Every structure is written in structure tokens, then in C-alpha cells.
């Protein structure tokens, strides 16, 4: 290779590297901004939620279901042999710190992202008594596991921890 060709190739190559380097911030700017990330955790006060009740709140701008299970609902969930399920998980695995009565899940159907019914008073909880997604008929049980319908996964359990007996920090 002649020297003049080498310099031309080096110049073009260098320009190419520069162009790629410029693209990085142009893409990165679409990632969540600092103010969005700052709201990436939510505190929930549990003290007012009676057994059998659920509340809807938001976590990372999506619905979050916090449900106080009754003993009967816990028993129903435990009765099922997890290995027979589409997405095998026990209620134990889906709750935190042995507090099986506090079921915390995202309110986002794992099928196509609708908000399932069942957290609000008097809403249809589907044939397994948990949540029911009206979009395409996915039914979740009292541990919010998928039992029937097109959804492939159980309702997602976000990372959370108990900050006291009656409060959790999600995220």
C-alpha cells in the first residue's frame, strides 16, 4: 500500500470513528432522564388495607396492585401444585419475608400489557379469584399466577422490601 492511500484511509477511518462517537449521545438522550429515574421507587402504606382488599397505586408510572390476602385465599393458592402451572411459582416465592398475606404485583397483564380487573372493589376477579384481564380473557389466581387465557407469565412481582410492619418500599 502506498503512503498516500494509507493517509486517506486513516482520515476517512478517523472521521468514521468520530461519527460513531457522536451517535452515542444522540441515542442516549432517549433513555430515562434523571428526574424520571429519581421517581423509580414508591413507598406504600399498608395499614389501611383490610384482608380481602386491594389497592391500586403506581410504580414507575404503571399500576401496582397491593393485595391483602385472606387466609382462605392463601390456602387456595397454596393448595395448587406449582409444578403443574404455566409459570411455576409458589405463593411463598412470590411474597417477601414470610408475609404471605401481602401480595404485591404489577397491574400489567403479561400478555399485552392491559390492566387486569380485580384490584378495585366489586371488580370481576375471574374464575380463579385473583385478577381477570378483560382484553383477552387471561385469568390469574389468588397468587396472581396465570391460570387460563393467553398470558404467558404470572403478574410480575417487583423488587420490594418492608420498611416497617405496615409499609413497603417498592423499587
Amino acid at each position, binding site marked *: 500500500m502506498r503512503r498516500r492511500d494509507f493517509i486517506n484511509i486513516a*482520515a476517512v477511518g478517523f*472521521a468514521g470513528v468520530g461519527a460513531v462517537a457522536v451517535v452515542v*449521545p444522540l441515542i*442516549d*438522550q432517549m*433513555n430515562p*432522564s434523571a428526574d424520571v429515574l429519581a421517581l423509580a421507587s414508591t413507598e406504600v402504606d399498608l395499614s389501611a388495607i383490610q384482608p380481602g382488599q386491594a389497592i391500586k397505586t403506581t410504580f414507575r408510572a404503571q399500576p401496582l396492585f397491593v393485595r391483602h390476602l385472606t387466609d382462605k385465599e392463601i390456602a387456595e393458592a397454596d393448595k395448587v401444585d406449582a409444578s403443574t402451572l404455566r409459570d411455576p411459582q409458589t405463593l411463598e416465592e412470590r411474597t417477601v419475608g414470610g408475609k404471605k398475606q401481602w401480595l404485591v404485583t404489577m397491574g400489567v397483564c403479561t400478555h399485552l400489557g392491559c390492566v387486569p380487573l380485580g384490584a378495585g372493589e366489586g371488580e370481576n376477579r375471574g374464575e380463579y379469584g385473583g385478577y381477570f384481564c378483560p382484553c383477552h380473557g387471561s385469568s390469574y389466581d389468588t397468587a396472581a399466577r396465570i391460570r387460563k387465557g393467553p398470558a404467558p407469565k404470572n403478574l410480575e412481582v417487583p423488587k420490594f422490601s418492608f420498611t416497617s410492619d405496615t409499609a413497603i418500599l417498592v423499587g
Partner: protein
Amino acid sequence: MSFPWAEHYAPKHPLMQWVDEKLPLPRLVYNAIGAGYPVPRNLNYFWNFGVLAGVALVIQIVTGVIMAMHYGANDLVAFSTVEQTMRDVNAGWLMRYAHANGASFFFIVVYLHIFRGLFFGSYKAPREMVWLLGLVIFLLMMATAFMGYVLPWGQMSYWGAKVITGLFGAIPVVGEPIQTWLLGGFAPGNASLNRFFSLHFLLPFVIAGVIILHIWALHIPGSSNPTGVEVQGPQDTVPFHPYYTAKDGFGLGVFLICFATMLFFAPNFLGHPDNYIEANPLSTPAHIVPEWYFWPFYAILRAFTVDFFFVPAKLLGVLAMFASILLLFFLPWLDTSPVRSGHYRPVFKKFFIILLIDVAILGYCGGAPAEEPYVMISQIAAAYYFAHFLIVLPLISRFEKPLPLPGSITESVLAKYGKADGEIAAVPAE
């Protein structure tokens, strides 16, 4: 289009042949900015600014589209969404500063491009259409820049919008209805902000369209050159690629060094501190000035202080400001000298230098407060500006005796480099 000796696009790869048959876009590019466009071999660095202006437009569109992703066009949140972009969006400060300084650099290269054209007579036949389309681009740029400056909704944004739309209020009878119509209200407000945002987003693409026409019109006679002598044969030209792509690549590097220095180390130098104060309709800044690139025109606007019988001074100022740009549209017919390049026009050259100084003085006065002695200086400078284009230039072209022109482009190049016979000259083409 183009000279008979231009290289012809002949794709070798079957895929490129197939594309060329269905959509000859590569052929178009090849003939426009590739090896298929023969360009005079003696262009100097002033011929870089056209390409640089194109690059500046691309920078503005890319950073502008990104700014729009984070911007809220509403008078309640506009200022804070811009601040949010600067503080919280990843690389948001970079996008904002690049867009704000990019506007200034766009004007810098365009002004150099225009003065290049003025000195080397690029506006003369057969390139009048190139010049006229360039002026259309310039007007569109000014409108775009003005509306863009309103968007951050700072004090200068607000009061700039108020003052500039107020210019239309100077027109008798229909002036005030026009001003209200432009603003969508009686003062700049949410309606104005939204329409300015919409148009500020649209106009750059219109500019891009007119640029295509500008380049198209250029390719019919081909590029002008520093001697102003027309191309006579293949020995006078080189293919655009690789000769001028290489030169433009170097020019682009120098441009980006200047741009990056400003952007990263003095991003607010060309801005005005008052625009970091949120718009307040109840308090006017002590000293309203537009962005620097409007200063010469702003000085002309303010230079009219005396009513002309029944015509108020304000209206005269507005008319003169528009006239100062519109007169450039008549330039190809005002300057009738057959010699293009200022290098061979001794009298023209002197007056051209006076014009440069004059515009610089106008710019300085436009940025200064509306006080004496700045107003008096701008009156003299503005008077010269009009006299230069409308009186002096036609007279010079009638009476001036030009210097002898070189016989051809090649002859002028040889006169410069002929002595370097046999060895590789290390001097760039000037």
C-alpha cells in the same frame, strides 16, 4: 447539465447497476457531489462555506428534532422543560448548547458564503438564480431563527417576539390586525408559542428543499471561481470527488474545531443573560437586543428617527430594514460590470472593503443600547449601506476600468505554481 468531459457514472457491481436502473439516486449524487461534477481547479477556501452551511443545517435539524423530544410548547412549562433538558436529560445540555450555538455558526458560515458571493461576483449571469435562491434560504433562516429564539420563553424570547411582531404594527391601517393575527392574541402568549414551535419545526425542511434547488441551479452553469473566468476546457476543472471532498473534509474539521471550542468552553458567550430569566409580560429588560446575527438589520431599523412628512419614522425603519435585504435580490442587475471577480476590479475592491467595515459598524451599533452616539453612527453607516448597493455599485460598474483578466483558469493556476516545477508543492490551493 455539466460539462461534456464530466465522468460518467458506470456502476460495476450488478447490484448497483440494478439500483441505477430502478432509481438512479446514486447517479444523481455522483453527478451532484461526486466524480461526475467537474469543478474549477482554482477554488480557494472561501468556496468551503457552502458545504459547511449544509453541515450546519444538518446539525440544527438533528439537535432540533432532539430538543423537540424534550420540549413542551406551552407558556406554562416551556422555560422549565428547556431547563429540565439541560439538567436531567442524558446529554441534554450538549443538545441544547449545540442547537443554540449551531444557529450562530450557521449564520457565520452563511454570512461568509454571502460575502464570498458579493466579492467574487457569484451573483452575475449565468448564476442569478443561484443567488436568488440563496437569498430565499437566507430569509427562511432568519424567520426560523427568530421563531426558534422565542421557544425557550425567556425574557428576550418574549420581548423579542413582542418587538419584532410590533414591526408589523407600523404598517398603516392593517398593521395592528396583522400583529394580532401573527401572535394569536394581543401580546405573545401560548398561541404564539405553539405556532412558532410548529413553524420552527417545519421551516428547516423547507430550507432543505430550497437548498436542493440552489444546488440544482448551481449545477447548470457549474461553480464560479476566484478569477471569474469561465471554464474553457477539461484542463480547467477537477472532479468534485476526491479533490473537493478532501478539501471540504479539511474545512469541516476546522469548522468543527471552532464550533466545539465555543460549544464546550463558552456556550453562553453569544447568548444574552436575560434569556435565563423566565418570560415576564410585566417587566421589560433594560436593553432588548436580538441575537447577534440580526444586529446590522436592527441598527438599520432604529436608525430612522425623523418622520418623513406623513410617513412615521417607525414605518420608515421597518421599510428600510426589509429593503436592506430585498435590495440584494436586484443585485445581479445593479452591478453590470462584465468582470466577476473583485480581484480584477480595483475600485470595486476598495468599496467592498468599506462595505465590510460598514456592516461591522452596523452590527456593533445594533447590539449597543439605543443611545447616542450609537444612533448617529448607525445613521451614517446605514446611509452608506443603501448608497453602496443602490448608487455606488451601478456607478462603479459603469465607469471602472478593470485589470486584465487571465486567459484561463489554468493560466492563473500556473502563474501561481509554475515555479514549483518538478517538485510537489506543499502549498494548499489558494
